């Protein structure tokens, strides 16, 4: 029984992590061929440093992710506060549904809708439309995380602060915000990684001047497996892995609670 359980776990984790680890190993392979080990080499990483287009795409992706995650966290917080604290205001049902609908919407549909709207509004497509699109599709995730955090909070502390003379604003800033700070951090991180990873919505809503890293990787992947793509992929995996490890340690909570 013990053996069977260990076997299930072993197989499960091998399936989840095997392909990623093989990819990372291959990025250090001196040979261009997947099936031939040509010795350890970091030359593909060095080659990346000369790849201006990829570096530029990485810069754009990081800026878009940081900006859109900040907007999505603020909007998600406002939406969560309204949904958790304002009671049954008019059109609450519509608001709740519209905020959370992108969670179940196929990316192609949302991308299509946003592009049509940007064209109809006469927006020049590029960095700004990209940030707007990413803030829109990650806001539902931040709202879910923050709504859960607010609902898990004991309202009596906030009420006590107000009984002692704090305005609702002050009570929120002094009592509620510190209490949900870890959730704010995980909402931001969730929006950040979702934006960093997005290919479909970005392809619809960006313009020629703002190619993101996933778009750049995608255009190279279509040409086949290359060691350079393996190297940039490994760096991206390591980057997200480090963020994840730091946040898990800092918040002293397992990654599960972040999701």
């Amino acid at each position, binding site marked *: 029984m013990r053996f069977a*359980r260990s076997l*299930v*776990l072993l197989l499960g*984790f091998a*399936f*989840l992590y095997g*392909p*990623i680890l*093989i*990819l990372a190993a*291959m990025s250090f392979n001196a040979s261009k061929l*997947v*099936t031939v080990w040509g010795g350890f080499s970091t030359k593909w990483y060095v080659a990346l440093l000369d790849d201006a287009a990829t570096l530029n795409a990485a810069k754009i992706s990081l800026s878009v992710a940081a900006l859109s995650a900040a907007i999505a966290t603020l*909007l998600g917080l*406002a*939406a969560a*506060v*309204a949904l958790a604290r*304002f*009671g049954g205001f*008019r059109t*609450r*049902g519509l*608001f709740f549904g*519209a905020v959370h609908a992108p969670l*179940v*919407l*196929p*990316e*192609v*549909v949302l991308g*299509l*809708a946003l592009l*049509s*709207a940007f064209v*109809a509004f006469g927006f020049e497509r590029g960095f700004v439309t990209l940030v*707007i699109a990413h*803030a*829109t599709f990650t*806001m539902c995730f931040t709202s879910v995380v923050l709504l859960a955090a607010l609902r898990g909070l004991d309202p009596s502390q906030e009420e006590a602060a107000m009984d002692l003379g704090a305005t*609702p*604003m002050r009570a929120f800033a002094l009592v509620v915000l510190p209490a949900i700070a870890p959730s704010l951090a995980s909402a931001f991180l969730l929006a950040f990684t979702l934006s960093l*990873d997005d*290919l*479909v919505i970005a392809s*619809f809503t960006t313009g020629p001047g703002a190619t993101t890293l*996933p778009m750049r*990787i*995608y255009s190279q*992947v279509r040409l086949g*497996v290359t060691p350079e793509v393996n190297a940039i*992929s490994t760096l*991206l995996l390591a980057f997200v*892995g480090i963020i*994840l490890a730091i946040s*898990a340690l800092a918040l002293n909570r*397992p*990654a*599960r609670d972040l*999701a």
Partner: protein
Amino acid sequence: MSVPRKKLSGGQRAVLAAPYLWIVVFFLAPMALIAKISLSHPAETRPPYEPTFSIDDGLAGVLAKARTLGFDAYRALADDRLYLDSYLTSLLIAGVSTAIMLMIAYPFALTMARAPRRLRSLLIGLAVAPFWTSFLIRVYAWIALLKDEGLINHALMALHIIDAPLSIYATNGAVVIGIVYSYLPFMLLPLYSALERQDPALREAAADLGASPLQVFWRVTLPLSRPGVIAGCLLVFIPAVGEFVIPDLLGGSETLMIGRTLWNDFFANRDWPAASAAAIILLALLIGPLLVAERARLRAEEEPS
């Protein structure tokens, strides 16, 4: 269910205004717009459809243009084998992937949920962590494994299990493998939380009353985990139907999934009305399972737990 209405204070209105306005302008309006585009006709204009309304038209102009709207794009889709096949293939591939994922994820989640308590959060944390890493890269990793000259074929041939490479890459099978792999964390999480919540005393009671371990599983563990199974299946089935990246990278030219067909219609053919109509139909297809799930959830909430 009636919700008590109440007037909001000025400050509350200000808090609500920002997300509300954002959602109306950047979500509801765009969705309404594609519903409208789906009723329009393709045209050699910018944007590539007719009619487009503007304030200068006046009421009569708007009415005259509104009369040219119609369901032509939907009728064209209904006659188009490509779209019909795309919808069916998408539903089939998503369904098969969901079933396989459930069979892999259930024993995995069960083992984690029954692990010693101090190990549990570490295990589920590790199982869900890949969700945070790039989806595109996780799909890309499979190309090197599945190709004819890839690692899996290489290993199998080296072990003399097969003589000629299996053609997995660029087939529907490769798409299923890609979906199972990428979406597994979404299936694991709800299953795990449903299984971990179960009171071990229920299983002990069933065993004390003479049930065999298999009977305990079929009649206690599995029925009690039903909400987790439903949540997990929906969480992977719905996005899998609209998937674009996986069929595009791992599928062959014959892999017609609706996300990919829609993408091509939009970018390559520039037929916005057809793509919009396809998107609206896709939404209608996906709302069905969601309503079923919502009913199941409400029923589960009514039962005393």
